């Protein structure tokens, strides 16, 4: 029997129009970045001046920019992974167990969102120095875990709040211990939330630069590099080329994995 979501005929049409428009809005800046990365002119303004791949060649030769991009990826992967783990475990403990400090914990764990980044940056620099660590990429990674943890917590909390404990209880009744239940029942049912948390954390870390500035040593992250290059107008098109490459690589990855999925064995999806 047809399940009548809100989408009936009229709304189905409306959404079919809206979603592509949304996608256009979403990708508009990226399309412009793509466009101007091939523009034969230093200034990113209309009218266009002609086609060139010079910026990409300059990009390939620019060690500092490529290193900064690589650093941002590494830091992002690390921060997203650790923050997601921390958020998942924490959210689960808060929702499922009646721990007394749970409420206080939730509030405190969300505070990094509230505290201006410059304060977080200075405080973490002071803290790390006091513990004997120096400025480095590791410091930035740790800093980004702190910045991203509230994001992960938020997403995972909203997921676990909705998760019916009956499934876990059934497993426990059937003899599984708690750890097994967590890994075999809870986590698989929360995969989309975990993925969402990971993506959000990675995106945040990739763009974050205030905390990164205070914790950075000789190795820069991409936003720091770009911010520092704003005094040099001639480098902007090369950075646009980098942005296009990153976007292109992401989309290529997506298309490739979709192709893999279609070729793979048919699995029942939830």
């Amino acid at each position, binding site marked *: 029997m047809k399940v009548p979501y809100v989408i009936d005929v009229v709304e189905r049409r409306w959404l079919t129009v809206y979603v592509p428009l949304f996608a256009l809005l979403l990708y508009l800046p990226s399309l412009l970045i793509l466009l101007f990365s091939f523009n034969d002119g230093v200034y990113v303004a209309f009218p266009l001046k002609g086609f060139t791949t010079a910026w990409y060649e300059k990009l390939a030769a620019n060690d500092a920019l490529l290193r900064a991009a690589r650093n941002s990826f590494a830091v992002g992967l690390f921060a997203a992974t650790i923050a997601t783990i921390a958020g998942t475990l924490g959210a689960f*403990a808060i929702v499922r167990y009646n721990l007394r400090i749970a409420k206080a914990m939730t509030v405190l764990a969300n505070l990094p969102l509230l505290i201006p980044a410059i304060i977080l940056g200075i405080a973490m620099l002071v803290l790390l120095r006091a513990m004997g660590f120096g400025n480095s990429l590791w410091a930035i990674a740790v800093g980004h875990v702190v910045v991203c943890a509230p994001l992960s917590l*938020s997403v995972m909390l909203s997921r676990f709040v909705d998760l019916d404990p009956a499934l876990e209880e059934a497993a426990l009744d059937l003899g599984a211990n708690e750890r097994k239940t967590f890994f075999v029942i809870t986590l698989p049912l929360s995969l989309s939330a975990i993925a969402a948390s990971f993506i959000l954390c990675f995106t945040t870390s990739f763009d974050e630069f205030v905390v990164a500035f205070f914790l950075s040593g000789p190795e820069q992250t991409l936003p720091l590099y770009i911010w520092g290059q704003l005094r040099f107008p001639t480098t902007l098109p090369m950075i646009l080329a980098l942005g296009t490459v990153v976007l292109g690589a992401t989309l290529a990855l997506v298309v490739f994995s979709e192709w893999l999925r279609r070729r793979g064995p048919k699995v029942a999806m939830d």
Partner: protein
Amino acid sequence: MVRGDNRLGQYAMLAPLGISAVLVVLVSLALILALSVQRTDPALLFTEFSLTAYRESVARPLFWMVLGRSLLISAAVTIATLLLSYPVAYFIAFKAGRHKALLLVLISAPFFTSYLLRIFAWKIILGFNGVVNSFLKTLGLIEQPLQFLVYNPFSVVVALTHAYLAFAVLPIYVALERIDKSLIESASDLGARPFANFRQITLPLSLPGIIAAALLIFVPTVGDYVTPTLVGGPGGIMVGNLIQSEFGKANDWPAGSALSMAVIFSVGLLLALMAGGAKLARRPA
């Protein structure tokens, strides 16, 4: 059924979160609280107790005006982002079937280019010779380019809204995805028309996701200073810029800390009031 009494294990699950977020938060708050009640002295950080920082920086009409402006901008960004993103999250949760993951990644992909690059792109879109102006000119609707699209609060709202779209889609999607479809089905069986069905079943059930999204968007945007610096113009300065300049140019850390405490307190109060208001609203009539 009793969950194990493995209290130690349970607390251990909180540990990673505790160490990272709580420790740093407590240190940060302690630091700015301590700094905010210091007399300004370029040579030393901690000299003597004094409330000058609060008196001179927080008790100024300028600060409250800028804070008010920041809160309005953040509210506008939050509302715009939620409105724009909800239908898409809905679409992915209910209509996308096997393509859910693909669509989610496609939604997130544009945000893997640097935010700074995207702001430059918005300057091209909204700017003098930009996309919007060229478009309107070719349509013959305007002769001179519109100058009011960028370097003002409007462009700040646009840039921030765009930047946070993924931050709304993902949490709302997570909440929507788990709604038990049978609830919607039964409501329909009982005669509810689709929109009423949505309003009374789906929307309330997706509320945790909406609230999570709203918090993730509203709170950080209040303190943002990068966007106003790049596209805000003189009229778009937000409270983050004030704090930034106290720590940087004005070399007045106590003032910066006092401003930060005031911002944290105000936003926290606002959130608490809204949470309280929501609780009241949910009480049965």
